[in-house]
Structures are given as structure tokens and as C-alpha cells.
């Protein structure tokens, strides 16, 4: 019984939140990694792109809620998501046309593009704060739990409860669908293949008649979609605040680099590595150890390795270890040295 309780507590506090957060990071990191693979720079504006897409989704959600459209038990935000994606696509395409294309034509060094993306980050951040304000926004509706801790307890008779939030299930399902679609696109369609060719060897791709502007455009469209989905899922699961999205940049970068930047598969693996490390290292393990250890050995403290405020440190340390010891990342992306 103790063992079962320990497993339930572990799932409730570590596994389920970790999987949901990992899926959100993975989708975010896919966006970063695609920009890096095709446009060859680290996009500092990615966090704010996510925030913008999410903001559009939220605004449409509020509008739908106000006129009474809903998805039944599912959050209305899912219905608003396509509009958010559309808004985000428009924004990044305008940005690309007005800002990035100039440097692409010039063949500017990647670091110049990174600095330019810092400027874009400021502007997008400003736009989002200007439109929706800098505060927390909540836009989730529908039932909060698929199974709440209390129901679980009465159902199984265990001491520990396990709750699964609706948003967590939605996150995981959406992530699977999105990733499957993306890989199908990259591996099976002509446009996807031309993207991969362009990422592997630009000159060769140009020689075989691939239109670079088209590849770039498709990339931005996909990136905008991924960013909006990641942002909306994160916002549904936790809450929306422009500054938090800016801060998400760090774990997302870490995920992309850990997996091997430029490698989509790596981005997904990296997302989960980062998410689980953050959750396990900042979780207070006492609750689980109490069930597993004999009474005499029970820990007196919380057995929390680091306080939750250090979660950035976790993703950062993993990032640094990978950068130093395995510069191509877990999945042989582009080298970082």
C-alpha cells in the first residue's frame, strides 16, 4: 500500500506536471530549432512571439465567451486557437518582410540577426503589453479536473490523491498531434523536404531549384503556429503574463540546445529533459520518501534539492553541461563551438 501511495504521489506531483510542462517546452523548442535550422540564428523574440499568439487567442476567447460560443467541456481557447495562429502568422510574416529579409539578402552574420531579434523582442513585448497589459490573465474555462484528488481517493481507497487537470490532458494530446503533423510534413511533403534540404546545405538546395524565400516563409508560418500552440497550452495550464513568456525563453533555448539545435527530434527530447530536471530538482521529496523508507530513516527536512525559484538555474546548468561536453547536443544537431 505504501508503495502504491508513493507511486501515486510521484505521478501526481512529478510525472504529470513534468509531462505537461515538457510538452509545452518541446513545442516551444521546436520553433526555436526550426528558425535556427533554416534562418540560422537564435531567435530571442521567440518568447514574445508565443506571448503575441497567445494574446490573440485570449482576445478571441473572450469574445467567444461573451457571445456564448463554447466547446462544451473543453476550453473555449481551443476554438480560438486557429485565430491566434493566424494573427501570429501575420505578425511574423510582416516582421520577416520588414526586418529580417534585409539582413538575409545582405548575408549578414548570425550574431547581427540575433541583435536584430533583440530589437524585435522589445517591439513584440511592447505590443503585447500595450494591447493586453502587463498583468496576469486567466482564460481557461470548462471543468478544471478530469479526475480530482478527492475522487481519486474515494475511487481507489489510497491515502494519496492523484489529480489530472483537463489542461494537462489537452496539452499532451495536442503535443502528440502537433508533433506527428510536423514530422509528417517534414518527411513526406515536398515543401517539408525542401526545408530539410535547405537546412542541411543551403547552396546545394539553391542549386536544385528550391526557392529560398518560399522555404523561409513556410518556416515562419510553422514557427508562428508552434509558438501560438505552445503559448496557449502554457497559458491554459498556468496563466498568461507577458513577462513569464519572456522568461520562458531560457528553458526553451536550453531544451533546443540540449537536444541538439537544428534537430526537431532533439528539441522534443530536450523539452522533456529540461522539464523533468526542473520538476524533480525543485520538488520536496519528503512526501514520497515517507512512504518508501522505514520509519527510522524518515527524512526530517523537506528533501527539496533546490527551492523552486532556482528552476532557471537547473535548465541553465544542464545547458552548460551540454554546451561544454557534448556541443552537438543529444541528437547531433549543429555544433555550438
Amino acid at each position, binding site marked *: 500500500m505504501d508503495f502504491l501511495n508513493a507511486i501515486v504521489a510521484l505521478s501526481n506531483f512529478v510525472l504529470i506536471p513534468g509531462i505537461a510542462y515538457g510538452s509545452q517546452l518541446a513545442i516551444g523548442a521546436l520553433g526555436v530549432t526550426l528558425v535556427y535550422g533554416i534562418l540560422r*540564428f*537564435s531567435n*530571442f523574440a521567440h518568447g514574445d512571439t508565443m506571448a503575441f499568439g497567445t494574446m490573440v487567442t485570449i482576445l478571441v476567447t473572450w469574445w467567444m465567451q461573451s457571445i456564448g460560443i463554447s466547446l462544451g467541456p473543453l476550453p473555449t481557447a481551443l476554438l480560438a486557437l486557429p485565430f491566434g495562429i493566424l494573427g501570429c502568422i501575420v505578425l511574423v510574416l510582416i516582421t520577416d518582410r520588414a*526586418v529580417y529579409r*534585409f539582413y538575409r539578402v545582405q548575408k549578414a552574420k*548570425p*550574431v*547581427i540577426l*540575433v*541583435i*536584430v531579434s*533583440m*530589437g*524585435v*523582442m*522589445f*517591439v*513584440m*513585448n*511592447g*505590443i503585447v*503589453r*500595450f*494591447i493586453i*497589459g*502587463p498583468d496576469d490573465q486567466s482564460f481557461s474555462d470548462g471543468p478544471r479536473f478530469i479526475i480530482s484528488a478527492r475522487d481519486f481517493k474515494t475511487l481507489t481507497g489510497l491515502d494519496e490523491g492523484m489529480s489530472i487537470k483537463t489542461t494537462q490532458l489537452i496539452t499532451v494530446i495536442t503535443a502528440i498531434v502537433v508533433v506527428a503533423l510536423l514530422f509528417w510534413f517534414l518527411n513526406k511533403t515536398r515543401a517539408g523536404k525542401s526545408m530539410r534540404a535547405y537546412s542541411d546545405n543551403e547552396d546545394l538546395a539553391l542549386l536544385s531549384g528550391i526557392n529560398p524565400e518560399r522555404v523561409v516563409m513556410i518556416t515562419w508560418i510553422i514557427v508562428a503556429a508552434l509558438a501560438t500552440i505552445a503559448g496557449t497550452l502554457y497559458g491554459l495550464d498556468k496563466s498568461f503574463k507577458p*513577462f513569464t513568456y*519572456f*522568461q520562458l*525563453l*531560457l528553458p526553451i*533555448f*536550453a531544451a533546443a*540546445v540540449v537536444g541538439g539545435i537544428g534537430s526537431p527530434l532533439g528539441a522534443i527530447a530536450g523539452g522533456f529533459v529540461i522539464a523533468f530536471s526542473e520538476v524533480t530538482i525543485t520538488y520536496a521529496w519528503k512526501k514520497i520518501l515517507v512512504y518508501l523508507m522505514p520509519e527510522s530513516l524518515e527524512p526530517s*527536512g523537506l528533501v527539496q*534539492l533546490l*527551492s523552486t*525559484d*532556482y528552476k*532557471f*538555474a537547473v*535548465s*541553465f546548468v544542464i*545547458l*552548460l553541461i551540454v*554546451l*561544454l561536453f557534448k*556541443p552537438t547536443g543529444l541528437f547531433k544537431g549543429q*555544433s*555550438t*563551438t
Partner: protein
Amino acid sequence: MTDTVKNSLLFALVFTLIIISGFFQGWNNAMFILNMGIISAIMALGVNLQWGYAGLFNVGVMGFVALGGLAAVLVGMPATPGAFSAGGPGVILAILLGAATIIVAVFTYKKMSAGRNRSLAITAILIFGFFVFRGFLDPAVGLIEDVNPAATGYLGGLNPGTQDTYRDNGWIMLIAWPVGGLFAAGAAWLIGKAALGLRSDYLAIATLGIAEIIIAVLKNEDWLTRGVKNVVGVPRPVPYELDLQNSAQFVERAAAMGFDPVEGSTIFVKLLYAALFAAVLGIIFYLSQRALNSPWGRMLRAIRDNEVAAEAMGKDVTARHLQVFILGSAICGIAGAMMTTLDGQLTPGTYQPLRFTFLVWVMVIVGGSGSNLGSILGGFLIWFLWVQVEPIGLFLMDIITAGMAEDSALRAHLIDSAAQMRLMTMGLIMILVLRFSPRGLIPEK
């Protein structure tokens, strides 16, 4: 028009702007812009040293600035009575043990041959070391934080005075500034050792992370900084306004110049600060300028422009990068210590990357990367805009919304959001400068 005339005109323009703001918003405000402008200019000089001279992409400025602030507290505040005897030795022992763990791990890494055994050994050392470190640190920290938690609850600093008299030792802050530089330099050495081999944008990501970690440490290690409870009442190297107002001599002199004592004293204090800051800026500018035009500066620029060629000429690229990374970060640390002195408090919660890292980058880019004079100009100009965009935005919104109904929701929203205009403006300025004048206002020669 020669360069000298053009540059003088640009500086004259910025100072005219500040003076105009003085006429409209009061001299206190103008002096505040000037003082923070000097500090911003120093930060910009530090970033320019790294980016403009050597092409190092450091977006961890915030971290170094915060470390400078920490130095101001650790040097300027008085020691908390009883705190050190309670937990001091424990903390020091824990830190030594932590450092020893890392040294042993590095040593193992160098001595053992690569393979699974080495990875296992290092992991074991680090995990064991971490638990030992926490085992010694946590109880000591608890003891320190229990000492009068409402007022202090931290170790305090090196100020020889007591809780009541430490403010008299304001001169100690002048020592704190270079100490802030040393703190930042130490951190930069550690970071540089680990991360400088990386490609430019990875160095950026790495430094971005380090800055967040430094802030997290300042926010959470209450025994060191009181965390989010903030340290207030940091002493200052200039007299207090209240003392001036109580001094008959000062009141008389202020009256002779046509100021009432309150306004006169605040402006006088800010003028003293401005003089001190300007002296620091002058020294750093002089040294940077000398460095830029020395063989060392030429070598750095050669490395920046073509690393491979410079290496082939026998230049030690990694060592020079480390050197300039440390120097630039130290300058940011000095500026951070000065800022905490000016504010009179250390508030870890207010350090935000947009304000302390990316804004400094805008200053350097707009001023002209590689040009010290440009960085100073950029520091003043961008800081001025950062402060003034909000009132200007509000003013514009008032005009735009003048035709709308008083109770219109859109009008209220637009006026509320005017404060958010500054980020957008900074981004636009940066993008426009990068596009149309990538070498900045005062280009590198």
C-alpha cells in the same frame, strides 16, 4: 563638418534635452536623469569593451550590475551583531566545501581518461558534495536568519559603525564601487572559463542564464542580501538632505541663491553625486580610450575582425577574450555598485533583463559599437528617452483620445497602456538604427 564638431553637437543636443526637461519637470528630475545617465554610460562602456572591441556577445549585464549592488551592501552596511558568530563559520565552511567539491570534480575530469567510469565518478562527487554543502549551509543559514529577522536577518557588511552610527561612514561607499567591480570580475572569470569557447549566440544564451541565476541567488539567499525583503538605508558618500536643511550655513547659502532649503538640499546632494559619478566616468573613459588605441586594443580588434588570422599571427585568442570579458563585466559591476548607492537600497526584485541588459545593448548599438564616445552618448540619450517616453506617450494618447467620450473604454485603455510605449519605442529605435545606420551615431574610426 568635422567629426569633432558633429560629436560636440550631438552631446550638446542631449544635454539641451536634459536641461529642457529640467525647465518643464523640475531640476530634481533633470538631475536624476543626469545621474542615471552617467551610470548608464558607464554600463554602456563596459558592454562596448566586450562587444565593440572584442565581439563578445554578453547579455548577462544585469547579473554583473546586481553583483555590484551586492558589493555595495556587503561593504557599506554594518555587520549584524551576533549574526556572524551564529552562522558565519558554518557558511564559510559550507562554501569552502562546495568549492572543494568543484575543484575535486575538475581534477578528476582532468586526471581520469574519458569514459563511463569518469562520468560516474564525477557525478558521484558532485552529488555527494552537494549534499555535504547543503548539510553545512542550511543550519548556518537558519541561525543567521533567526537573528532579528524583521530588521536584519542577514550577515550585514563591513561598515565599522553600529546600527546607529554606520551612516557616518559614508566614505566607505567609495571603496564599495571598486569592490563591486571585483565581484563582477570574479564572476566573469568563472563564467568566462566555462562559456567563452562557445559560438557567439550560445555565449549569449549562456550569459542570459547566468544573469537569471545571479538574480535568483540574490532573491533567495536571505542570509546574504535579505532577499526580497530588500536592504534599505545603504549609506552614501554625500551628506543627507535632512542634515543640510538643519545646517544654518547651508540654508543661508541656498537662500542667497534663491532656493528654498528643501529643494536646494536635494539638488545639492544630486550635484555632489553627479560630480562623483562624472569623475568615475571620466577615469573609465580615459582608460578605455587609452586601451583602445594601444597595441592591446589593436590586437583585440584584429581578433574581432578575423579570429583565425589573429590566431595564426600567434595571438592567444581565448586568453584575450577572457581578459576583456572580465574587464567589461567589472565596469558593469562598478556601475551597479554606484546605482545601489544612488538608490540607497538593494532591491533584488527590481532587476529585470529588459531594463538592465537589453536597454544597455540599445545604448551601445545606438551610440555606435566600438566607439567609447558613442557609448557614452548612447547611454545618456537612451536613458533620457527611457524616462521621457512615458510622459510623451501619455501626452500623445491624450491628444489622440481627445475626441473620444470621457467614459470610453478604449480611451481609458489607451491612456493606461501609454506606459508600455517605452519598450516598443526602444525596440523600434534599435531596429531602425541597425537597419539604416548600423555603425551608430558616433561610428568607430
